[in-house]
């Protein structure tokens, strides 16, 4: 168990664990997170599992006729949302690394994610 004192506490934690285009979850989670940012919440987002694909750079949706998830997600810092975490084990499994991402996210262990969740007041999962 890691020292819990070094892991931040959030009032509202978003867990994104689904891919951006396979369902409406990616889009709707992002819209909820942007709303929370607009309300100035003490919040963070954890990208894990398939949710890591949301941060993959070079998304070009013009020919797929889909709204570009990357463009929307890039707005997070403008909404004051800069506590972004990426599941380190999930990165390895998908042969991704942080240089594949268009936004800076902090890699964290599964144990740290567990602590982030248990220290959070509320969790919304998408």
């Amino acid at each position, binding site marked *: 168990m890691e020292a819990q004192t070094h892991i931040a506490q959030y009032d509202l934690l978003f867990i994104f664990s689904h891919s951006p285009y396979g369902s409406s979850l990616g889009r709707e989670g992002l*819209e*909820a997170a942007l709303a929370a940012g607009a*309300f100035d919440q003490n919040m963070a987002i954890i990208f894990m599992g398939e949710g890591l694909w949301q941060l993959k750079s070079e998304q070009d949706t013009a020919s797929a006729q889909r709204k570009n998830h990357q463009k929307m997600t890039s707005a997070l810092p403008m909404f004051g949302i800069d506590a972004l975490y990426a599941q380190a084990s999930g990165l390895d499994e998908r042969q991704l690394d942080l240089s594949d991402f268009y936004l800076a996210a902090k890699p964290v262990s599964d144990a740290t994610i567990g602590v982030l969740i248990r220290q959070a*007041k*509320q*969790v919304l*999962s998408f």
Partner: protein
Amino acid sequence: MLFTLVIHAAPHSLLGSTAYNAYQFAQCLLQEGHSIHRLFFYGEGVHNLNAQAITPQGEFDLPAAWQALITQYQLDSVVCIAAALRRGVLDDNEQRRHQTAQRALANNLLDGSELSGLGQLIDATAHSDRTITFA
């Protein structure tokens, strides 16, 4: 204890539906003396409050059951407006706003719930002891 329930699941969907779980959980917690700060229907969950969904005879009518629960306990029931419009669940205002001569639309949001924005979800998490997602 004060709960907010976030319902992503539709009564009839590709994935096995937790919409029934959400309803029974809500009913039970109220019977146990707890309170609901807000029901927030998001994503596919907006279909729970579609007045145009017809349930076959002999089957549990989930939309009607939600409406009865909401009325009985005077629950604050909010349906995400963006998610609802995309999926064709409209209140009176939205029906009039989007209807055209070429496109007839129904006002099909069950009475007792309202369409509103995602701010209502964020506000609810900040004012509840527990927020539980059913998906």
